[in-house]
């Protein structure tokens, strides 16, 4: 049986999703502040790594990486509402790409599993 990553279309799917997803994130003024100071190319590599993980693809993302990476943002006030906003953009991106509802659900479960690490809980 195909894995979630394969069903979604693998790396091509990540590449299509990253432009749409990151554009939504930057256009959202409630969260764009957290992305202001970052080098855009590096940011994109990170977003791709995140999407690869959320799509169930090959990754070695650890909770510790997530925690460390987001700790400075938590200090700046990153909270539940921001997490939900990003998750919302991820869901909207998948829907825009015509991903089947059951697969969207699976991705959202994986993304949701990062909640505590991202918010440092």
């Amino acid at each position, binding site marked *: 049986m195909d894995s979630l990553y394969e069903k979604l279309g693998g*790396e091509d799917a990540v590449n299509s999703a*990253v*432009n749409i997803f*990151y*554009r939504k994130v*930057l*256009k959202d003024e409630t969260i764009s502040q957290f992305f202001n100071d970052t080098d*855009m*190319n590096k940011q*994109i*590599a*990170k977003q*791709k*790594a995140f999407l*690869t993980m959320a799509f169930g693809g*090959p*990754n*070695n993302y650890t909770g510790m990486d997530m925690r460390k990476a987001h700790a400075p943002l938590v200090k700046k006030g990153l909270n539940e509402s921001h997490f939900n906003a990003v998750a919302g953009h991820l869901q909207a991106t998948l829907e825009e790409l015509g991903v089947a509802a059951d697969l969207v659900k699976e991705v959202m479960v994986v993304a949701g599993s990062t909640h505590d690490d991202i918010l440092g809980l």
Partner: protein
Amino acid sequence: MAILNYQQQDYICQENETVLDTLLRENIAIAHGCRQGVCQSCVMLSVDSNPPKNSQHGLRENQQQQHHFLSCLCIPEQNMQIADIEQSDFVYEFKVLAKQMLNHNTLLLRLLHDDKFTFKSGQFINLKSVDNVTRSYSISNTPNQQHYIELQIRLLENGRFSGWVHNDLKIGDNVPASAALGGCFYNKKRSQQQLLLVGTGSGLAPLYGILHDALEQNHEGTIHLFHGGRKAEDLYLNDELTQLVIENKNFHYTPCISGDYNDEHRSHYSQGRANEVALSAYSNLNDWQVYLCGHPEMVKQMQTQVFLKGVNLDDIYIDAFHCLYKK
């Protein structure tokens, strides 16, 4: 088993061992992260051969053309000479052929290059002065049979390098130079794709090269160049660019003045910063290819703005002139 040559040392790659693992095993500090081809922290340069195709997975086309590869994915198929991508050894000596002022503070420097030197218009080289001051300059012409490159060098107040070039460097002198570096060059994906070129000050240099490269390769889509300066006299090559507009239906040129603006300017120049004029000229930039060169703040802001207007990240090429503005 392949031999890796890195910084004049040979290392033996074991069976099925990656370049990154080999170097780490030899206690060489190589930047790396995920070790599976995702994070792109471990990009290196293959100096003497095409790297294995699968080790370029996910890199941008311009990086692939420069023989960049991911060391964590690369199991060598042959002996390889490899280097860090930021390598800037002064391996060449270029002879000064001509110096010519383009406006009140920008000089065109023409250098005869070594036979082995290859470049793409828009890439930069590092040069070294007699006082060992080094600076990067973009190449503004296309490869030619006479083997010369042209640079546009702006004289900065108290500029140690630019002052030396303007005042002391003579025709016939030799200047130590690096290989051509950087990924800001014309990448012909589709001939019909529309190209937006935005530069401030001597940020025109790489764009001038990219423009000529695209025209020589018969680019069919619209090419629109916005060049900005504070005053009219800060702009240069206006006549040459205006002539190119007459000769090429698909080329548009908009010189912009961000400082004092009067009625006399109106017939020749647009008012405002080049990046802002460019953004207001197009309501969306879906599927465009964009090249941004010059002031780092402008480049950074504009990168985000064109992305939000629909340009895909793989279609944005940037060259920020950091050293010009830091000191």
